[in-house]
Protein backbone atom coordinates (compact mmCIF):
# COMPACT_ATOMS: atom_id res chain seq x y z
CA UNK A 1 0.00 0.00 0.00
CA UNK A 2 1.14 3.59 -0.61
CA UNK A 3 1.52 6.57 1.67
CA UNK A 4 -1.95 7.79 0.87
CA UNK A 5 -2.95 6.69 4.34
CA UNK A 6 -1.32 9.63 6.02
CA UNK A 7 -3.54 11.25 8.63
CA UNK A 8 -3.11 15.02 8.63
CA UNK A 9 -3.03 16.93 11.88
CA UNK A 10 -4.12 20.57 11.71
CA UNK A 11 -4.35 23.40 14.15
CA UNK A 12 -7.88 24.67 14.69
CA UNK A 13 -9.04 27.19 17.29
CA UNK A 14 -6.07 26.48 19.52
CA UNK A 15 -6.27 22.70 19.33
CA UNK A 16 -4.64 20.12 17.17
CA UNK A 17 -7.25 18.21 15.20
CA UNK A 18 -6.66 14.92 13.45
CA UNK A 19 -9.33 13.16 11.47
CA UNK A 20 -8.93 9.43 10.94
CA UNK A 21 -10.73 8.24 7.87
CA UNK A 22 -8.51 5.52 6.55
CA UNK A 23 -7.93 1.97 7.68
CA UNK A 24 -5.61 1.81 10.64
CA UNK A 25 -2.92 -0.50 9.41
CA UNK A 26 0.19 -0.78 11.59
CA UNK A 27 2.07 1.58 9.34
CA UNK A 28 -0.69 4.19 9.33
CA UNK A 29 -1.06 3.99 13.10
CA UNK A 30 2.64 4.42 13.71
CA UNK A 31 2.88 7.30 11.26
CA UNK A 32 -0.11 8.98 12.86
CA UNK A 33 1.32 8.66 16.35
CA UNK A 34 4.69 10.01 15.25
CA UNK A 35 3.07 12.88 13.41
CA UNK A 36 0.80 13.84 16.30
CA UNK A 37 3.55 13.79 18.92
CA UNK A 38 5.81 15.73 16.60
CA UNK A 39 3.13 18.40 16.11
CA UNK A 40 2.49 18.65 19.85
CA UNK A 41 6.19 19.13 20.36
CA UNK A 42 6.47 21.68 17.58
CA UNK A 43 3.40 23.78 18.42
CA UNK A 44 3.21 23.25 22.17
CA UNK A 45 -0.47 22.47 21.73
CA UNK A 46 -2.27 21.76 24.99
CA UNK A 47 -5.16 19.89 23.44
CA UNK A 48 -5.65 17.43 20.64
CA UNK A 49 -8.96 16.35 19.17
CA UNK A 50 -8.93 13.03 17.40
CA UNK A 51 -11.92 12.46 15.17
CA UNK A 52 -12.76 8.86 14.29
CA UNK A 53 -16.19 9.52 12.78
CA UNK A 54 -14.76 8.25 9.50
CA UNK A 55 -14.29 4.79 10.96
CA UNK A 56 -17.13 2.30 10.97
CA UNK A 57 -15.22 -0.27 12.98
CA UNK A 58 -12.66 0.26 15.73
CA UNK A 59 -11.38 -2.87 17.38
CA UNK A 60 -9.59 -3.31 20.66
CA UNK A 61 -6.14 -3.29 19.15
CA UNK A 62 -6.75 0.03 17.42
CA UNK A 63 -8.50 1.44 20.47
CA UNK A 64 -5.61 0.48 22.74
CA UNK A 65 -3.25 2.10 20.31
CA UNK A 66 -5.22 5.35 20.48
CA UNK A 67 -5.24 5.22 24.26
CA UNK A 68 -1.52 4.73 24.55
CA UNK A 69 -1.01 7.54 22.04
CA UNK A 70 -3.16 9.76 24.25
CA UNK A 71 -1.05 8.81 27.26
CA UNK A 72 2.05 9.85 25.38
CA UNK A 73 0.41 13.15 24.46
CA UNK A 74 -0.52 13.81 28.08
CA UNK A 75 3.09 13.32 29.17
CA UNK A 76 3.82 16.17 26.78
CA UNK A 77 1.21 18.28 28.52
CA UNK A 78 -1.43 17.79 25.88
CA UNK A 79 -4.98 16.74 26.68
CA UNK A 80 -6.64 14.45 24.15
CA UNK A 81 -10.32 14.16 23.30
CA UNK A 82 -11.65 11.33 21.20
CA UNK A 83 -14.67 12.28 19.11
CA UNK A 84 -16.97 10.68 16.58
CA UNK A 85 -17.39 7.18 18.00
CA UNK A 86 -20.47 5.66 16.41
CA UNK A 87 -22.94 3.65 18.54
CA UNK A 88 -21.83 0.31 17.09
CA UNK A 89 -18.21 0.95 17.97
CA UNK A 90 -19.14 2.06 21.47
CA UNK A 91 -21.28 -1.02 22.08
CA UNK A 92 -18.56 -3.32 20.79
CA UNK A 93 -15.83 -1.68 22.89
CA UNK A 94 -17.85 -2.03 26.08
CA UNK A 95 -18.66 -5.65 25.32
CA UNK A 96 -14.98 -6.27 24.71
CA UNK A 97 -14.30 -4.75 28.12
CA UNK A 98 -12.14 -2.00 26.66
CA UNK A 99 -10.41 0.20 29.21
CA UNK A 100 -12.37 3.44 28.97
CA UNK A 101 -11.34 4.73 32.38
CA UNK A 102 -10.27 8.36 32.13
CA UNK A 103 -10.87 8.58 28.39
CA UNK A 104 -12.19 11.97 27.36
CA UNK A 105 -14.74 11.98 24.60
CA UNK A 106 -17.16 14.29 22.83
CA UNK A 107 -19.72 13.83 20.09
CA UNK A 108 -17.93 15.88 17.47
CA UNK A 109 -15.01 18.23 16.89
CA UNK A 110 -17.36 21.17 17.49
CA UNK A 111 -18.47 19.77 20.83
CA UNK A 112 -14.88 19.21 21.86
CA UNK A 113 -13.85 22.75 20.91
CA UNK A 114 -16.74 24.06 22.96
CA UNK A 115 -15.76 21.93 25.94
CA UNK A 116 -12.17 23.11 25.75
CA UNK A 117 -13.10 26.77 25.98
CA UNK A 118 -12.47 28.30 29.41
CA UNK A 119 -15.58 28.83 31.55
CA UNK A 120 -17.26 32.24 31.00
CA UNK A 121 -16.75 33.46 34.60
CA UNK A 122 -16.11 32.30 38.15
CA UNK A 123 -19.81 32.22 39.13
CA UNK A 124 -20.36 29.46 36.60
CA UNK A 125 -18.15 27.24 38.75
CA UNK A 126 -20.34 27.84 41.77
CA UNK A 127 -23.38 26.72 39.78
CA UNK A 128 -21.41 23.68 38.68
CA UNK A 129 -20.89 22.62 42.27
CA UNK A 130 -24.58 23.02 43.02
CA UNK A 131 -25.51 20.85 40.09
CA UNK A 132 -23.14 18.07 41.11
CA UNK A 133 -23.65 18.02 44.84
CA UNK A 134 -27.22 19.15 45.41
CA UNK A 135 -29.66 16.39 46.42
CA UNK A 136 -32.00 15.26 43.66
CA UNK A 137 -35.18 17.28 43.31
CA UNK A 138 -33.84 20.28 45.18
CA UNK A 139 -35.27 23.52 43.84
CA UNK A 140 -32.57 25.40 42.02
CA UNK A 141 -32.38 27.87 39.19
CA UNK A 142 -31.09 24.98 37.11
CA UNK A 143 -33.43 22.36 38.52
CA UNK A 144 -34.34 21.17 35.05
CA UNK A 145 -30.76 21.01 33.83
CA UNK A 146 -29.08 17.62 33.56
CA UNK A 147 -26.28 17.01 36.02
CA UNK A 148 -23.43 17.88 33.70
CA UNK A 149 -21.02 20.75 34.37
CA UNK A 150 -22.66 24.03 33.39
CA UNK A 151 -19.79 25.16 31.21
CA UNK A 152 -19.56 21.89 29.29
CA UNK A 153 -23.09 21.19 28.03
CA UNK A 154 -21.85 19.06 25.17
CA UNK A 155 -19.03 17.10 26.72
CA UNK A 156 -20.04 13.46 27.07
CA UNK A 157 -19.94 12.14 30.63
CA UNK A 158 -16.63 10.60 31.59
CA UNK A 159 -16.62 7.03 30.30
CA UNK A 160 -16.36 4.71 33.21
CA UNK A 161 -19.50 6.09 34.81
CA UNK A 162 -21.69 3.49 33.19
CA UNK A 163 -19.64 0.40 33.39
CA UNK A 164 -22.01 -2.48 33.54
CA UNK A 165 -20.47 -5.78 32.68
CA UNK A 166 -23.41 -7.57 31.19
CA UNK A 167 -23.36 -6.20 27.68
CA UNK A 168 -27.02 -7.02 27.16
CA UNK A 169 -28.99 -4.63 25.02
Amino acid at each position, binding site marked *: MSDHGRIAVHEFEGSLVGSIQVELSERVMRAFRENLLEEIHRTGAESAIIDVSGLSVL*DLHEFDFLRSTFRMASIMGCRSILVGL*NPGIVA*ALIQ*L*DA*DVEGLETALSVEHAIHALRPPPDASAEADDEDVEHGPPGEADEDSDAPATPAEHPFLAPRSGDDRSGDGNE
Partner: protein
Amino acid sequence: MSNREHRIRITGDTDVAIAVMQARQQSTQIGFDASCSCRIATAVSELARNILKYADEGDIVLTAYAGQAHSGIEIRAEDRGPGIADVELALSDRFSTGRTLGLGLPGVRRLMDEFDINSQPGEGTRVRVRKWL
Protein backbone atom coordinates in the same frame (compact mmCIF):
# COMPACT_ATOMS: atom_id res chain seq x y z
CA MET B 1 -32.41 -21.85 1.94
CA SER B 2 -29.10 -20.51 0.74
CA ASN B 3 -25.79 -20.26 2.50
CA ARG B 4 -23.11 -18.04 1.12
CA GLU B 5 -19.60 -18.70 2.29
CA HIS B 6 -16.55 -16.48 2.07
CA ARG B 7 -13.12 -17.67 3.10
CA ILE B 8 -10.41 -15.09 3.78
CA ARG B 9 -6.86 -16.23 4.31
CA ILE B 10 -5.24 -14.19 7.08
CA THR B 11 -1.52 -13.63 6.70
CA GLY B 12 -1.18 -9.92 7.42
CA ASP B 13 -2.76 -6.65 8.41
CA THR B 14 -4.41 -6.06 5.08
CA ASP B 15 -6.20 -9.40 5.30
CA VAL B 16 -7.65 -8.37 8.64
CA ALA B 17 -9.03 -5.22 7.04
CA ILE B 18 -10.46 -7.23 4.15
CA ALA B 19 -12.12 -9.70 6.49
CA VAL B 20 -13.62 -6.83 8.47
CA MET B 21 -15.00 -5.16 5.37
CA GLN B 22 -16.36 -8.44 4.10
CA ALA B 23 -18.03 -9.09 7.43
CA ARG B 24 -19.67 -5.66 7.46
CA GLN B 25 -20.88 -6.07 3.93
CA GLN B 26 -22.32 -9.53 4.50
CA SER B 27 -23.94 -8.49 7.76
CA THR B 28 -25.67 -5.58 6.09
CA GLN B 29 -26.82 -7.81 3.25
CA ILE B 30 -28.28 -10.31 5.70
CA GLY B 31 -30.21 -7.48 7.29
CA PHE B 32 -28.35 -6.67 10.49
CA ASP B 33 -28.59 -3.04 11.56
CA ALA B 34 -25.54 -0.78 11.68
CA SER B 35 -24.83 -1.45 15.34
CA CYS B 36 -24.94 -5.24 14.95
CA SER B 37 -22.92 -5.14 11.76
CA CYS B 38 -20.30 -3.17 13.62
CA ARG B 39 -20.25 -5.70 16.43
CA ILE B 40 -19.95 -8.60 14.01
CA ALA B 41 -17.14 -6.83 12.17
CA THR B 42 -15.38 -6.12 15.47
CA ALA B 43 -15.60 -9.79 16.46
CA VAL B 44 -14.07 -10.71 13.11
CA SER B 45 -11.31 -8.19 13.68
CA GLU B 46 -10.52 -9.62 17.11
CA LEU B 47 -10.47 -13.20 15.85
CA ALA B 48 -8.38 -12.33 12.81
CA ARG B 49 -5.85 -10.46 14.91
CA ASN B 50 -5.59 -13.44 17.25
CA ILE B 51 -4.74 -15.62 14.30
CA LEU B 52 -1.97 -13.25 13.26
CA LYS B 53 -0.64 -12.80 16.73
CA TYR B 54 -0.53 -16.42 17.83
CA ALA B 55 -0.49 -18.51 14.68
CA ASP B 56 0.96 -16.20 12.01
CA GLU B 57 -1.68 -17.36 9.56
CA GLY B 58 -5.08 -18.93 9.33
CA ASP B 59 -8.52 -18.46 7.86
CA ILE B 60 -11.65 -16.53 8.58
CA VAL B 61 -14.73 -18.13 7.09
CA LEU B 62 -17.92 -16.09 6.89
CA THR B 63 -21.16 -17.90 6.17
CA ALA B 64 -24.47 -16.14 5.65
CA TYR B 65 -27.54 -18.12 6.63
CA ALA B 66 -30.74 -17.13 4.91
CA GLY B 67 -33.36 -19.59 6.05
CA GLN B 68 -37.07 -19.25 6.65
CA ALA B 69 -36.83 -19.62 10.38
CA HIS B 70 -33.32 -18.37 10.92
CA SER B 71 -31.20 -15.71 9.30
CA GLY B 72 -27.79 -14.85 10.54
CA ILE B 73 -24.09 -15.07 10.14
CA GLU B 74 -21.48 -17.57 11.18
CA ILE B 75 -17.81 -16.72 11.61
CA ARG B 76 -15.17 -19.40 11.85
CA ALA B 77 -11.59 -18.58 12.76
CA GLU B 78 -9.23 -21.46 12.06
CA ASP B 79 -5.52 -21.81 12.44
CA ARG B 80 -2.82 -24.45 12.85
CA GLY B 81 -0.98 -22.46 15.48
CA PRO B 82 0.19 -23.54 18.90
CA GLY B 83 -3.32 -23.99 20.30
CA ILE B 84 -4.56 -22.96 23.70
CA ALA B 85 -3.38 -25.02 26.65
CA ASP B 86 -6.16 -24.00 29.00
CA VAL B 87 -9.28 -23.05 27.09
CA GLU B 88 -11.36 -22.46 30.20
CA LEU B 89 -8.86 -20.01 31.53
CA ALA B 90 -8.76 -18.18 28.22
CA LEU B 91 -12.55 -17.90 28.33
CA SER B 92 -12.69 -16.58 31.86
CA ASP B 93 -12.95 -12.87 32.41
CA ARG B 94 -9.77 -12.85 34.40
CA PHE B 95 -8.00 -12.73 31.06
CA SER B 96 -9.85 -9.70 29.85
CA THR B 97 -8.31 -7.37 32.40
CA GLY B 98 -4.74 -8.31 31.51
CA ARG B 99 -5.75 -7.82 27.97
CA THR B 100 -2.32 -7.64 26.45
CA LEU B 101 -1.81 -11.25 27.44
CA GLY B 102 -5.30 -12.45 26.72
CA LEU B 103 -7.17 -13.42 23.62
CA GLY B 104 -10.22 -11.24 24.10
CA LEU B 105 -12.37 -14.36 23.78
CA PRO B 106 -14.82 -13.43 26.55
CA GLY B 107 -15.39 -10.18 24.68
CA VAL B 108 -16.00 -11.95 21.39
CA ARG B 109 -18.46 -14.23 23.15
CA ARG B 110 -20.34 -11.21 24.48
CA LEU B 111 -20.53 -9.68 21.03
CA MET B 112 -22.16 -12.76 19.48
CA ASP B 113 -25.07 -15.08 20.22
CA GLU B 114 -23.34 -18.45 20.00
CA PHE B 115 -19.76 -19.32 20.74
CA ASP B 116 -17.78 -22.53 20.28
CA ILE B 117 -14.11 -23.18 20.58
CA ASN B 118 -11.96 -26.17 19.89
CA SER B 119 -8.30 -25.92 20.66
CA GLN B 120 -5.53 -28.31 21.60
CA PRO B 121 -1.85 -27.54 22.14
CA GLY B 122 -0.07 -28.43 18.93
CA GLU B 123 -3.28 -28.85 16.98
CA GLY B 124 -4.34 -25.31 16.34
CA THR B 125 -7.49 -23.44 17.20
CA ARG B 126 -10.97 -23.33 15.75
CA VAL B 127 -13.44 -20.75 16.95
CA ARG B 128 -17.01 -20.67 15.69
CA VAL B 129 -19.42 -17.87 16.53
CA ARG B 130 -22.88 -17.03 15.28
CA LYS B 131 -25.20 -14.11 15.42
CA TRP B 132 -28.87 -14.29 14.51
CA LEU B 133 -31.15 -11.60 13.20
